[in-house]
């Protein structure tokens, strides 16, 4: 099966028009000695056989264990309209809207998406999406290096460990010094951060809520960074913005995050999208595509890709980033999700996450020998200190069919007794109760 529609007659006529005897002649520019030495692939099949094959493979997945794990990806409700509308073939099978007149659907949607991101984050401008939260953070770091012309970054240890690793990987070949600041009691240490800041710091990178779930009013840190001429980069969890003061209000210069929780399925880690927003004065330093409003020849409103002279297809090695394809469809899903939730619904969603997590925190924290690590307020994720090694507990509970959380020790060796637990709106009181019972059993039986 190859979806090639030409019939033998078609092919004959086409070859005649070209003036060659056979299709193989068209490969004559490829020297014989360069031909494939092997192409050892299985025989093809019909779509019906394919479906069976794929089902057998999928069945090797035994348990769906979203449960109480987060760590950057969250199990949230997705309204049915998100799948149906984003699956419209006109969105789904189009490409980057290079020709605006026949791409107004995608362009207007992306403009509306940018608007939603600005309003959530309290920033002035957003691009049309990046790959994911981690790469968005790396792009933000590189943007800060460009804006300030400095070469030092201060990154808080409470930033998702994967994100920190991505930032390090992206910058490994550039002459950039990265200073990591250890959090204290699950939150950014003010003295340590002050000590790390210098007049060579391009940016201070924070996450809110951080990997341990702690919420922080980072306004003081933004002021402190800016006083030294550095930018404040905040990586945020978009659902929290339904109730938490926006990073814009807290004074952030660049805001990034992962849009998975906005209407994108877990899908074993992708695709989701990364968002990035900043203030108007830095718009030319943004990576990736940006949609702008304009008018047509009759003065009618329309949308186009704008400020393209920043991008790789024009500026090549001097571009603000190498990104070309982004995660447009996932950003569209994010927009449809936000429109469906609406102003009140989105605030309610945040509150629901918070309430359930607070309840779980109380129930789990009441287990003998268990305490809550966070001294700060948390949103829908929190860290428990267990009387036992958390990895062993998690492994045991997985066998019982429950994903109790992420053992912090996987990424913070000194925290081997700590467990990061996530509670979204999808978890019921009953499930929380069951987790408490099983966790208690794992610890004390």
């Amino acid at each position: 099966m190859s979806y090639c529609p030409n019939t033998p007659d078609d092919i004959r006529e086409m070859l005649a028009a070209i003036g060659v005897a056979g299709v193989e002649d068209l490969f004559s520019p490829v020297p014989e000695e360069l031909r494939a030495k092997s192409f050892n692939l299985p025989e093809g099949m019909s779509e019906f056989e394919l479906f069976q094959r794929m089902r057998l493979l999928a069945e090797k997945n035994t348990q769906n264990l979203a449960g109480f794990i987060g760590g950057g990806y969250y199990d949230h409700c997705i309204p049915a309209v998100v799948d149906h509308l984003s699956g419209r073939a006109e969105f789904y099978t189009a490409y980057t809207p290079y020709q605006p007149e026949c791409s107004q659907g995608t362009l207007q949607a992306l403009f509306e998406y940018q608007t939603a991101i600005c309003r959530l984050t309290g920033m002035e401008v957003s691009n049309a999406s990046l790959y994911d939260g981690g790469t968005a953070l790396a792009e933000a770091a590189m943007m800060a290096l460009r804006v300030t012309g400095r070469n030092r970054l201060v990154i808080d240890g409470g930033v998702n460990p994967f994100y920190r690793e991505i930032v390090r990987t992206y910058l490994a070949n550039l002459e950039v010094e990265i200073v990591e600041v250890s959090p204290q009691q699950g939150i950014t240490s003010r003295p340590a951060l002050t000590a790390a800041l210098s007049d060579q710091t391009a940016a201070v990178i924070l996450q809110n809520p951080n990997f341990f779930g702690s919420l922080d009013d980072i306004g003081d840190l933004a002021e402190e960074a800016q006083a030294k001429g550095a930018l404040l980069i905040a990586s945020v969890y978009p659902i929290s913005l339904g109730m938490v003061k926006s990073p814009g209000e807290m004074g952030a210069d660049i805001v990034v995050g992962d849009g998975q929780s906005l209407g994108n399925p877990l899908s074993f880690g992708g695709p989701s999208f990364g968002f990035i927003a900043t203030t108007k004065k830095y718009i030319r330093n943004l990576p990736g595509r940006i949609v702008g409003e304009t008018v047509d020849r009759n003065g009618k409103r329309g949308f186009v890709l704008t400020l393209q002279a920043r991008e790789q297809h024009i500026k090549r090695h001097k571009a603000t980033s190498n990104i070309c394809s982004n995660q447009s469809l996932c950003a569209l899903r994010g927009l449809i999700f936000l429109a469906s939730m609406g102003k009140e619904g989105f605030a309610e969603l945040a509150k629901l996450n918070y309430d359930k997590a607070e309840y779980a925190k109380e129930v789990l924290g009441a287990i003998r020998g268990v305490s809550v690590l966070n001294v700060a307020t948390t949103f829908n994720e929190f860290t428990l200190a267990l009387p036992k090694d958390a990895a062993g507990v998690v492994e045991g509970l997985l066998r019982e069919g429950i994903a109790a959380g992420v053992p912090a020790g996987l990424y913070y060796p000194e925290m081997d007794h700590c467990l990061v637990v996530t509670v979204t709106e999808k978890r019921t009181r009953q499930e929380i109760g069951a987790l408490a019972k099983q966790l208690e059993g794992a610890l004390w039986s």
Partner: protein
Amino acid sequence: MDTYFTKEHEWVKIKEGIASVGITEYAAHQLGDITFVELPQEGKVVKQFEALAGIESVKAASDIYTPVSGQVVKVNTALEDRPEIVNEAAEDAGWIAWVKVADESELKNLMNREQYEAYVKGLE
């Protein structure tokens, strides 16, 4: 006051040791509607033919190279809000920067108007 030109389509006019630098009308026309001029920092020291500033239109981005070595003493901040001035008057109000000339003998590396016009004609 004579005007000199580079192969990269910059012009320069020198008065009392200060060079006024911009892009030629030909270059402005080639770029189309200018949307942004990236001005240099005042005080920046530049060498002849090094990048001085940047200029963008909807579909193109180019560097502007300095025709003479020296120090940037003034930039045309009017272009920040109205980059279209470069389209309207490239060789006058659309100047980019003033450079305090380090070495006037560098002018011998440039073209005069007649030579530049012939050069442009050869490109078409």
